[in-house]
C-alpha cells in the first residue's frame, strides 16, 4: 500500500497494516533480555535498565533469569575460553526467535585482552551476532542505540522467504556446537558455519 495513502487513512481513523507489520511490531516491543553479565560491561547494562536510562521504555524491562524465557542474549563483557562453552550452551537453551548483542570491545573481538591465552577473540566465532557495540565499556546510550538497531532489524524481517526469522525457517540450525576444552585451546577454535575470518590485507603477505 502506498505510504501516503496509509498516513491519510490514519488521519481519518483507519489503521491499515499487514500481518507481518503487526507481528513484528509486537515482537520488537517485547524483547526480553537474559539476566546474564560477564564483566564490567554488565555494570553498564545494569545502569541501562535503571531509572536514568530506563530500557523499559523500549519494552525490555524484564530481565529473565532463565534462558528459556529470554529473547535476547547481551554478551556483556570478556568471554574467557573457560566461559565460552557456557555462553554457547545458554544460547542453545534459548527459544527462537532469539537475538544476540555483542556488547563492548571484548565481546566483539577480545578487546584489550585479544592476545591473552585465555580470552576468546569474539563471541561471533561460535554464535551468530545481530548487533555489535564498540566501546570499553559502551555507555548506556550505546546499548540503547544497539537495542533500537535490533528493533529496526526485527521490524524489517519478512515472515516468508529469504531473511525470515529462524523460528519460521525449518532448515535453520537450532543448536550450535558447544566447543570442548582441549589440551591447548578450545576445540574447535571457531564454528566454521558461523564465522569466517574477514578478508584483510596484512603488510608483508
Amino acid at each position, binding site marked *: 500500500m502506498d505510504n501516503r495513502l496509509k498516513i491519510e487513512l490514519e488521519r481519518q481513523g483507519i489503521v491499515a497494516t499487514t500481518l507481518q507489520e503487526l507481528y513484528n511490531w509486537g515482537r520488537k516491543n517485547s524483547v526480553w533480555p537474559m539476566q546474564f553479565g560477564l564483566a564490567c560491561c554488565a555494570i553498564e547494562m545494569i545502569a541501562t535498565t535503571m531509572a536514568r536510562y530506563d530500557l523499559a521504555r523500549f519494552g525490555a524491562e524484564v530481565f529473565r533469569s532463565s534462558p528459556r524465557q529470554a529473547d535476547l542474549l547481551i554478551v556483556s563483557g570478556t568471554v574467557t575460553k573457560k566461559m565460552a562453552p557456557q555462553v554457547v550452551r545458554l544460547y542453545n537453551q534459548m527459544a527462537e526467535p532469539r537475538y544476540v548483542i555483542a556488547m563492548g570491545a571484548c565481546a566483539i573481538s577480545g578487546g584489550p585482552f585479544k592476545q591473552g591465552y585465555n580470552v576468546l577473540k569474539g563471541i561471533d566465532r561460535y554464535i551468530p551476532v545481530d548487533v555489535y557495540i564498540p566501546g570499553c565499556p559502551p555507555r548506556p546510550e550505546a546499548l540503547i542505540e544497539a537495542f533500537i538497531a535490533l528493533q529496526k532489524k526485527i521490524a524489517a524481517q519478512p515472515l516468508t522467504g529469504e531473511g525470515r526469522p529462524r523460528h519460521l525457517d525449518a532448515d535453520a540450525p537450532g543448536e550450535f556446537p558447544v566447543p570442548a576444552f582441549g589440551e591447548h585451546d578450545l576445540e574447535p577454535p571457531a564454528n566454521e558455519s558461523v564465522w569466517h575470518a574477514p578478508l584483510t590485507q*596484512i*603488510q608483508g603477505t
Partner: protein
Amino acid sequence: MKSVEEIKSAIEAAVPGAGVELVPNSSPSAQHSLLLAPEKAVAVATFLRDDAELAFDFLSNVTGVDWPEPGYLEVVYHLYSMAKKHGPLILRMRTENRIDHVELPSLTPIWRSAEFQEREIFDLFGVVFTGHPDLRRLLMWDEFKDHPMRKDYVDPDDFEYEPTAHDAVLERAIEHRKQLSVSSGQ
C-alpha cells in the same frame, strides 16, 4: 624489624641445617630476599610464623618466576607481621629444573592464604606443590596441558583475523597466512 642478615642467622640458630642463602638486591630498594632449601622450607616457615620476635603471621603474596636460563622455576613469598607491624620479608624457593623435577613444598599448611595463589602458580607455571590440600588448576580448565606464564609458552595459532596487527602479532599473522597458503597448496 631485624635486617635480613639477622633473620638469616636467627633461622640458622633455630633450624639446624636450614641451608638459607641470601639473595642480594642491588637496586636502590635493597630488598634482599632469602632463598630456602625446599626440604627445610616448612620448618623455616613455621619458625618465622611462630617466633615471638619475628611473628610473620601474614602471607601477603605468592608469585612465580620462570628462569629459562639457568633453567629453574622460582616461587616468591612476601611475608608481613600484623602483630609486630613489620615486613616485608621475601622468601624464594627454586625447583631443580623446569621439566620433570618441579616439586616444591607447599606452605599452605603454615599460611592458609597461600592456597589459591599456589594453585595459580601450579596452573600458570607448572610448579607442583607437595603437601597442598587441593592442588588443581585455578584459572585454566582441567584438561589444559600447558603453562601459559612460562617463557617458552606458545599460544594457539588463532591469528587469522588481525585488523591492526603490529610487532609480534604482525609476525604471527604473517606466519599464519604462510601456513594457510602452504596447506591449501597455493
